[in-house]
């Protein structure tokens, strides 16, 4: 009933799992004209003028929060940032109480980042505002996967038929999950590569192949999406040492040089240079890490625009303050 302008996209964007390739393609196509707005002298259009958007960040984030904030501001929306430190959250307020209080102040959209898987869905089911998942626990980070796909499509001209290998800590990664669902829906082949301790058991059931050796992954892939090795994983005993990790799984120019093609290298950031990726790769011609950041703003503008549009009945609901 609450359908936005793109088929398959409802009130919220919680994850890419279950979204059709057609829906994802429509989001990426909508992002294209938004790229140009960020190149203008006056980087603002009035399409979301008068909309209030809350960025509710229960986990530290620099890139994602700033990217959403730029996207919101460039569409003319008013934004409020709430982080868990310095808010009523530290005083023990529950997520749903925080959300209901925000609703009572008549907001239109919420971007939520939370440490618990399912937090975004939980919120979306309880408030009439649009909810965008900015990363929830190990579940999904849909806008990251969308910007990864937009960047791949820019560089390689297509997604259908591409071979993409996600490298690193797969088991704790919402970026990996969103990329697997999104890429497969768009017709790409997906593989993962990393230490056994960081690859989920049974991932093959998702149609994902596993490379135990980075050399084989590089041989196979058109693109590598290199994930950050979260340093706390080392303390938890998942990897013996950073040096060891770099020696076995680090993406280096020496390894890329043996690839049969120009492998495109993505990284969602923030990078640990010299751990999962070497500096000469990160700053080299095969890296699309900075284009990813640029595309992040355009993709988020597209998602905000699509979710905000064409739902008069929801605007009525919000006006009445129903929940």
């Amino acid at each position, binding site marked *: 009933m609450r359908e936005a*302008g793109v088929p398959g996209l409802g009130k919220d964007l919680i994850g890419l799992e279950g979204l059709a390739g057609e829906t994802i393609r429509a989001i990426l*196509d*909508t992002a294209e004209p938004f790229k140009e707005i960020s190149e*203008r002298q*006056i980087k603002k*259009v*009035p399409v979301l003028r008068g909309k209030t958007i809350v960025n509710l960040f229960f986990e530290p984030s620099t890139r994602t929060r700033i990217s959403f904030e730029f996207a919101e501001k460039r569409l003319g929306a008013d934004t409020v940032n709430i982080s868990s430190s310095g808010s009523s959250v530290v005083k023990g307020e529950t997520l749903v109480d925080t959300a209901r209080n925000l609703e009572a102040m008549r907001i239109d959209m919420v971007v939520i980042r939370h440490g618990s898987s399912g937090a975004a869905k939980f919120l979306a089911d309880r408030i009439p505002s649009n909810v965008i998942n900015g990363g929830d626990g190990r579940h999904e980070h849909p806008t990251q996967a969308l910007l990864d796909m937009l960047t791949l499509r820019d560089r390689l001209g297509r997604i259908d038929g591409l071979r993409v290998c996600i490298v690193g800590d797969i088991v704790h990664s919402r970026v990996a999950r969103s990329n697997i669902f999104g890429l497969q829906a768009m017709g790409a082949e997906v593989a993962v590569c990393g230490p056994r301790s960081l690859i989920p058991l049974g991932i093959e059931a998702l149609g994902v192949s596993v490379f135990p050796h980075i050399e084989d992954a590089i041989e196979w892939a058109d693109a590598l999406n290199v994930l950050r090795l979260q340093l706390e994983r080392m303390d938890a005993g998942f990897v013996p040492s950073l040096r060891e990790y770099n020696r076995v799984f680090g993406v280096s120019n020496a390894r890329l040089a043996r690839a049969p093609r120009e492998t495109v290298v993505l990284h969602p950031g923030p990078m640990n240079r010299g751990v999962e990726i070497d500096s000469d790769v990160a700053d080299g011609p095969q890296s699309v890490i900075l284009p990813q950041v640029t595309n992040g703003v355009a993709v988020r503008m597209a998602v905000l625009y699509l979710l905000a*549009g*064409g739902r008069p009945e929801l605007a009525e609901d919000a006006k009445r303050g129903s929940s």
Partner: protein
Amino acid sequence: MTRETEPHVLLDAAGVEETLAQLADGIVSGGSTHDLVLIGIRRRGVELAERLSVLVGDRVGGPVATGSLDITLYRDDFGQIGSMPLIGRTEIPVDVTGRRVVIVDDVLYTGRTIRAALNEISDFGRPSRIELCVLVDRGGRELPIQADYVGLSQLVADGEHVEVRVPEQDDEFCVRVVGADRTGIE
């Protein structure tokens, strides 16, 4: 004058060409051409602006800058329209500040598209002057906006649709009025 479903042709291909030539003459005599920029409004206005740029270029003996504008993000009915059209690209290849800008569109009706276009162009700079050139003025204004160069003035009833068909998109070149039951999306 117009039957319900039979399209009524206002201008055939030769008529459109002749009208465009008159519009080009008007633009040339209407002001300086060395700083002229023609900006077409997506979609049909873009093809017309490109044709006008060739015609004006022939008359002044030099190329004329052109751009294109997609006004979707500046519409005043966002959130009311059921499904959103896919946004096209806005491409303005020159700095419009201090230049003479002529907005080109196919049909002038309520004036709301032009209101949106004026706002969008203002976000790109401050032209010395902005004018409006349309192939057809069908009346029915909802805002105080008038065109400087009009190819054809023809009052058309609400519910009828004025269609400008261009070879790039429709494989023919004409202007016609389509009855209420065949109205397309303005």
